[in-house]
């Protein structure tokens, strides 16, 4: 009787508790959750939010870098940038597919993005004003992204974890390419060096904001950690990013735009200045320099492509009808 109640989809509160406990036990034992497994509705929703937000970030993230494809200053750099942007679109594709295993369609996710119901990483609401910004995005933005994403290769949801393995490999490559671009500028003419410093000045703080609000203010953290879809806190990851990046900036001969930055031998970490969270929340709310433009570009691409998508469906219908007629 008890089992029957579960099967009919109207389980008692006690049954749900037992099911959730078994689910949590599986996670605690390090066993991956797969698409066909039972999962709490909140786990499913949280993952859909997280994975689709990640997918949208890849797609919108094509735009600031795409801004420089036509102006890349050497054919080699142009090829690297084209390949990188293509990788981002590919990441978007796997991530949408991973989210689809949770019972949401790609069209629904895209619609949520265009309607402003879903978010993407706020970093892409900053403009790429010079060529050095392409390097800074690779070095700092992809650097922060990797820091966030490497732990996700071990997250509890199988399809997401597996997608992240490939994404991380490519992102690591992008970060090295970004750093290499910055190195060429740092070793270049005074104008190129100034371009590199200016890019670091503008991208440093937004890159640190990418890890999200301080741990005390983070709304999703505790439950996500219990579910192992978040393995480190925002502040832990941010500290790792600062510790990793400061020596890299020094090697480039660039100055990190933070007067409070200094090595703390006792902690074994860099201390750094206060982040302007007002700016962060303002950009999240839609008031960054490029929020409107980015979303409008995506909406226009989608609307302009409507005839294309409709025609492919219509052709597939005609082809199927012809095949049926032939067979009959």
């Amino acid at each position, binding site marked *: 009787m008890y089992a029957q109640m579960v099967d009919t989809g109207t389980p008692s509160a006690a049954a749900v508790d037992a099911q959730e406990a078994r689910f949590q036990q599986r996670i605690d034992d390090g066993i991956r959750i797969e698409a066909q497994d039972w999962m709490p509705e909140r786990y499913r929703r949280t993952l859909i939010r997280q994975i689709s937000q990640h997918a949208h970030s890849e797609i919108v993230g094509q735009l600031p870098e795409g801004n420089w494809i036509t102006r890349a200053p050497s054919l080699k750099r142009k090829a690297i940038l084209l390949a990188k*942007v293509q990788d981002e679109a590919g990441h978007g594709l796997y991530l949408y597919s991973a989210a689809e295993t949770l019972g949401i369609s790609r069209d629904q996710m895209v619609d949520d993005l265009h309607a402003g119901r879903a978010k993407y990483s706020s970093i892409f609401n900053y403009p790429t004003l010079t060529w050095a910004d392409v390097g800074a995005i690779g070095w700092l933005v992809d650097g922060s992204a990797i820091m966030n994403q490497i732990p996700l290769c071990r997250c509890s949801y199988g399809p997401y974890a597996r997608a992240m393995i490939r994404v991380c490999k490519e992102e690591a490559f992008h970060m090295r390419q970004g750093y290499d671009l910055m190195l060429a500028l740092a070793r270049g003419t005074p104008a190129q060096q100034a371009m590199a410093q200016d890019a670091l000045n503008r991208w440093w703080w937004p890159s640190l904001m990418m890890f999200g609000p301080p741990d005390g203010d983070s709304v999703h953290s505790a439950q996500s950690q219990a579910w192992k879809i978040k393995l480190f806190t925002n502040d832990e990851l941010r500290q790792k990013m600062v510790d990793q990046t400061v020596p890299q900036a020094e090697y480039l001969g660039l100055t990190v735009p933070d007067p409070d930055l200094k090595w703390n031998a006792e902690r074994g970490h860099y201390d750094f200045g206060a982040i302007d969270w007002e700016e962060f929340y303002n950009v999240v709310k839609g008031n960054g320099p490029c929020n409107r433009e980015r979303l409008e570009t995506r909406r226009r691409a989608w609307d302009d*492509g409507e*005839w294309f998508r409709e*025609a492919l469906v219509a052709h597939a219908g005609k082809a199927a009808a012809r095949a049926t007629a032939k067979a009959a």
Partner: protein
Amino acid sequence: MAGSARLEYLLRLGDNALILSQRLGEWCGKGPALEEDMALTNTALDLLGQARLWLSLAAEEAGDGADEDTLAYLRDDRAFRNLLLVEQPNGGYADTLVRQFLFDAWASLALRQLLGSSDAAIAAIAEKAIKEVSYHLRRSSDLVVRLGDGTARSRALLQAALDTLWPYHHELFTGDAVDAEMLARGIGFDPASLRDAWLSYVRDVLAEATLTVPSAGGWAPKGGKQGLHSEHLGKLLAEMQVLPRSHPGARW
């Protein structure tokens, strides 16, 4: 840029790939579907790779410290040798697709001829490029058929694009003294000799796509191969070349 016929020939091959790649790069992040965004970038990347091979070979021929980047970034529009077709603006997706299809159908025939070139370096690049271009042609032909024979709206958009771009196909088959010399030396081919095969292939695809082949005759713009371009190229180059031009001597 005055130079040997071989240099001119290599610039023509390289500039076609470079300029079309540049146009496709403008689509980044704005395609009609995510898969198409990836495909446009992929095609742009293949063509850019081909352009780098042709232009590096051209730079060897030119000497004087030229390299792929000086050729791409420091020549003025009158020194570019690409076909007028590839510099035409992207327009909407239908225009971009039809331009690609007309070019792919020509490039696959042209590269096949170059496989037999007496110039080993040219034959080697053609061998690499033809694999990519054969795939581009399969893709663009398939999409022309699916979108031509899709909805009334998609058919109208493709037909309008075809009518606009059709006059530019004449230049693909118009030879000059450079072509004649390359043919005589066993390096190149006679452009006019490709016309029948091209027309036959294009007609078959357009028929399957339920599109109408535009009528013969009329306006036949040409001159791109000799450096006489449309107004579009100057603006394309102004954008492409801005950084190396504004930072003379800088390395990137």
